[in-house]
């Protein structure tokens, strides 16, 4: 069931979610087996920023009912370190490489995109826009104008596919999606983590070193499916769906509402081979009749005018 995504051929539709699988560390833990049994059809690296980052102080993890909340804080070597140390090793993986980048201003993002534009090892770029733009104070991914503004700056800088990773913490995610599409995004990916908080049961002070964190895993699955569905209805470009995928059936749900690829994040923490297992489960159960090849339901699902919950 090989698939084409932005001109890249992939063995199957399952990739990893950025920041949830470190192929370099995994090689240390699992040796050559990692490359031999690589669980994803493409590898998405953790967010790279211009300057190196230590990340947030620990504790960085809080377990939730059917989920995880993290405040990792995007630790990474920074662009220079990534190019020298990480990229050469990631280039030896048996699958295409997608590099996820984040900048705190349009100029920072531009520098990152320019740097990777000329690297043949990089098949595509994913823009993590879940952070405030220091120029405006607005979260780039929460505001249609911000996203359009950003893409107008960086789209001309590379021919590589640009995947815009949307934040779920927005009033109107489809509006942001349309703005990204119109401004030249090659694809969209969602959802990123949902903002959350936990207190230390003993002191009632914030548990996480970062005070608040991002929720992922099965706990966000229903919210993810709703957002992916609305975005697939809103745009024509391919969408990478993610959020709480732990089985082939969950991946199938995202494909059914129109996603082109499915990314697995938190479930890899429970089993590093989850990607392989989910892809295998997908093979076993093809989509039921009534779905177009892209997987959009052939009818029904547009009655979005119905009254809400409660």
């Amino acid at each position, binding site marked *: 069931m090989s698939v084409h995504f932005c001109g890249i051929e992939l063995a199957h539709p399952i990739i990893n979610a950025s920041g949830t699988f470190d192929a370099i560390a995994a090689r240390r833990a699992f040796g050559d087996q990692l490359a031999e049994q690589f669980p994803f059809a493409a590898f998405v690296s953790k967010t790279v920023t211009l300057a190196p980052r230590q*990340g947030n102080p620990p504790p*960085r993890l809080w377990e939730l009912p059917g989920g995880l909340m993290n405040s990792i804080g995007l630790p990474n070597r920074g662009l220079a370190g990534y190019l020298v140390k990480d990229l050469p090793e990631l280039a030896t993986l048996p699958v295409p490489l997608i590099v996820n980048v984040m900048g705190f201003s349009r100029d920072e993002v531009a520098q990152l995109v320019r740097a990777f534009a000329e690297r043949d090892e990089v098949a595509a770029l994913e823009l993590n826009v879940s952070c405030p733009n220091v120029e405006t104070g607005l979260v780039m991914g929460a505001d249609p104008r911000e996203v359009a503004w950003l893409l107008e700056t960086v789209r001309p800088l590379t021919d590589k596919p640009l995947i815009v990773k949307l934040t779920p913490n927005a009033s109107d995610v489809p509006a942001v999606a349309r703005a990204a599409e119109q401004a030249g995004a090659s694809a969209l990916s969602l959802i990123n983590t949902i903002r959350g908080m936990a207190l230390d049961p003993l002191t009632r002070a914030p*548990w996480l070193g970062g005070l608040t964190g991002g929720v992922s895993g099965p706990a966000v699955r229903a919210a993810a499916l709703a957002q992916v569905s609305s975005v697939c209805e809103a745009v024509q470009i391919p969408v990478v769906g993610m959020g709480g995928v732990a089985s082939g059936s969950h991946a199938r749900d995202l494909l059914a509402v129109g996603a082109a690829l499915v990314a697995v994040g938190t479930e*890899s923490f429970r089993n*590093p081979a989850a990607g392989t297992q989910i892809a295998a489960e997908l093979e076993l159960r093809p989509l039921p009749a009534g779905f177009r090849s892209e997987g959009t339901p052939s009818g029904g699902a547009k009655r979005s005018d119905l009254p809400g919950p409660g």
Partner: protein
Amino acid sequence: MSATAERVTAPFGTRAVPVTSRQHHGPYIVLGCADTAGPRPAAGQFYMLMTTRWGGGQDERPFLPRAFSVLRAPAATSELQFLVQDVGPGTNRLAELEPGDELSLLGPLGNGFAAPREGRRPLLVGGGVGIAPLAIWQDQLEREAAVVLGFRDSYHAAGARLLHQVRVGTEDGSQGHHGLVTELLEDELDLDSHVQVYACGPPAMLEAVRLTCAVREIPAQLALESGMACGFGACFGCVVATKHGYLRLCVDGPVLDARSLDTVVFAGGGH
């Protein structure tokens, strides 16, 4: 940063193994399982464990696997032993396992202990459930090791049975030396300071060990704990602060050279 190159790589992916034995030692439970598909681990390495019936406990947890040092891995067998102290929803589940039940595991993971340098005598210092990695290390060491272990009381001190030739201390004096294990450590160092210290236990104990060894300039390897989600370097959640910045304990530890630490702090989610 890591004190050692002792790392046995793990088969890729979690695997199900049968539980073969279950023993109580005071508050601790020793779970045995038959890991026919896995390699023999190095002392100090750990595994991520789950049960088939994971979740549904307090606050609908556990969801993520839990990290456990290997207690024992007899050579030329497929047996693995883990020492479990029931402190929350995840250890609840594991503590319920009976022979014949299924255990899901990933490992061995992380760096183990390194052999003593300069012909130093190994000195093992453990506290509470932290004795686990010291047992397999004592099994593997060629050289006779001195062992000092600290527990809350004689009930917990039952765990001392898992090692041999042990000097025990209890905080309430109900067994052995009345006081902290670090006092026993000082003792031992007074008798013979040409030692290499291997320690595992609660953060406060490890910090005391680190300080003592720093003052006396004695090499020490500390097996630390922190909250972990994945165990193989994927989540960046298990970091501890070192002189070299934050390190992921699951891939750059859990065994660290005491000199790489300014202090041992509790990084959350261990116990």
